[in-house]
């Protein structure tokens, strides 16, 4: 018996009893669709997390000044800590092994003005390394370079939001904006960054697109600190050569800073990659649960197929007898019925995959949950449905094959 013949027979069986076949498939359809949807939600969350941490740099350790109240700040200063300083950065780069680059950054919240417009912004003083360490992309012009930094030039790079607020249809490059009492020339505009919507450690959620970047040398020289007690800089970003020594390096950094800050706890260390791993671990449990629910629905779908197939075999005893009488072997009958259940489950699987894709799109469109369908998950769900078809079709098919020809041919 040719295999193609079985498939043809099974497909004919499907179309002969459309409604019944559909009901039989329903379990598989729901099962596969839920597997696809749940995996796509899991994958969407994962990608979102990766994108978020990628912005912070996967090889980076971020040392951030702690947000302290005025009283706390006074207390810390009284205990001799000067807060984060360029000197801290210097020491770290000299002592910690495996450091690729290090960037200090000073920040200040103030207004930026252009003509009669004013935008609340965070002025960030940075070193030229900053761009490559943080994956910032320039949309127009260029980023702050060594020349700007070394010569303390009065230049700035605008976040996409600030540029859009000031220059509608106007080329921002070369224009002068005013920060505090300084006039700065715009040399570049950044590409829009995704909103940093979640607080990671001391990195508070904020809109990165309202940042304005200036050379750190200029910043320290020309801008007054937010508060007389403010630290010299607000953040040190340490980039390591690779990600496997992040934890050890952060411990060393912590010890250095402990000493330099006279045991004052006025800074915090964030390892984006470690946070990503941790988040991943938490999500794994969640994904496992979702997967288990989906698997159960597939199982129920399989039992549905088995139920119908058992009834079908009973109903078609006579057909089996006729086939046997003209020379069908047990294996022929067996493969006919297994093929039938596989065809049902594959058809259900295909419909389920499509339903799952549509459901994922609906989830993305109507909620703020991101979804992403990996080819792997389609493959997984689909092969599951084939396995279900084979395993739950096996028993009914075996029953069919074991019917005695002499009895089944006379079955009324």
């Amino acid at each position, binding site marked *: 018996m040719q295999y193609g013949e079985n498939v043809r027979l099974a497909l004919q069986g499907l179309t002969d009893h459309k409604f019944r076949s559909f009901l039989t498939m329903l379990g598989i359809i729901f099962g596969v669709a839920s597997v696809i949807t749940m995996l796509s939600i899991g994958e969407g969350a994962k990608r979102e997390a990766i994108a978020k941490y990628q912005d912070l740099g996967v090889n980076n350790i971020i040392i951030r000044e702690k947000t302290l109240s005025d009283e706390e700040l006074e207390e810390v200063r009284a205990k001799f800590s000067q807060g984060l300083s360029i000197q801290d950065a210097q020491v770290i780069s000299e002592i910690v092994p495996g450091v690729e680059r290090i960037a200090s950054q000073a920040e200040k919240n103030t207004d930026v003005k252009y003509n009669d417009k004013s935008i609340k912004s965070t002025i960030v003083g940075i070193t030229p390394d900053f761009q490559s360490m943080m994956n910032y992309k320039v949309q127009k012009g260029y980023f702050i370079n060594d020349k700007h930094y070394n010569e303390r030039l009065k230049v700035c790079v605008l976040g996409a939001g600030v540029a859009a607020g000031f220059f509608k249809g106007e080329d921002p490059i070369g224009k002068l904006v005013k920060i505090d009492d300084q006039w700065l020339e715009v040399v570049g505009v950044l590409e829009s960054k995704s909103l940093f919507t979640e607080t990671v450690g001391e990195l508070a959620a904020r809109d990165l697109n309202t940042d304005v970047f200036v050379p750190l040398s200029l910043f320290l020289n020309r801008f007054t600190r937010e508060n007389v007690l403010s630290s010299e800089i607000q953040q040190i970003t340490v980039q390591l050569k690779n990600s496997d020594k992040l934890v050890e390096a952060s411990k060393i950094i912590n010890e250095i800073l402990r000493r330099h800050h006279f045991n004052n706890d006025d800074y915090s260390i964030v390892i984006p990659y470690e946070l990503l791993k941790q988040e991943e671990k938490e999500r794994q449990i969640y994904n496992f649960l979702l997967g288990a629910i989906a698997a159960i629905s597939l199982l129920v779908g399989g039992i549905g197929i088995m139920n119908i197939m058992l009834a079908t075999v009973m109903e078609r005893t006579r057909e089996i007898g006729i086939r046997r009488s003209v*020379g069908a072997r047990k294996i022929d009958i067996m493969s006919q019925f297994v093929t039938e259940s596989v065809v049902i489950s594959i058809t259900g699987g295909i419909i389920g995959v499509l339903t799952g894709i549509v459901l994922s799109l609906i989830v993305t469109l109507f909620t703020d949950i991101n979804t992403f369908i990996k080819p792997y998950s389609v493959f997984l769900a689909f092969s599951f449905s084939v396995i279900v078809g084979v395993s739950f079709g096996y028993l009914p098919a075996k029953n069919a094959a074991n019917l005695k020809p002499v009895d089944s*041919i006379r079955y009324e």
Partner: protein
Amino acid sequence: MLIEIKDLKKNYLLGDVEIPVIHGINLNIEKNEYVAIMGPSGSGKSTLMNILGCLDTVSSGNYYFNEMDVSTLDDDALSIMRNKEIGFIFQNFNLLPRLNAIQNVELPLVYAGTPGAERKEKALRALNRVGLSDRVNHKPAELSGGQRQRVAIARALVTNPGILLADEPTGALDSKTGVEIMRLFEELHTEGNTIILITHEQEIANYAHRNIYLKDGMIHSDKINSDKTIIF
């Protein structure tokens, strides 16, 4: 010798009790014979037919088909025997209702592994032989009883089997159609086919050349039919 049966016995298990149905039959059938096996219900003729048709196995004794001992064959080998050597024709036709005439006729060839084009050609030839070349694509429900039986005969002929085994082939037909079917059998016999007819009607048995009468699981009489019915 095409068929040789030696001391054949068949028992059925009814609960714990073995009920003997055939008590020891010896029977020889030559190639191109036209035999009718008769007997009242319960005489064991259906059981004998099942054994001859390799649908059932013997309890003891031997069944030789073309000098091969069929009684020792396993299920797969019996299936192949049915496929290649036996052409069944049943009282209730036993066609598959979802398949059309040609697909029904092709069925044995499907299991024989014959390629599609050759299958179609052979099936068409068989349908043509039984005079149904204009009903090829009709489903059984769209055919008359006589036509259905012709499809069944075409299906039995299509593999060119060693014997045609007909179990009450006219039982579900009116007498006029029945005569037509019997005429077809006569022709097939003339063309060289070996035919075994199972019937409880003397009238039908009269068409055959040899009549075997079974009673209580034994051969009661076995004689050449001297006043054979001739169909004009």
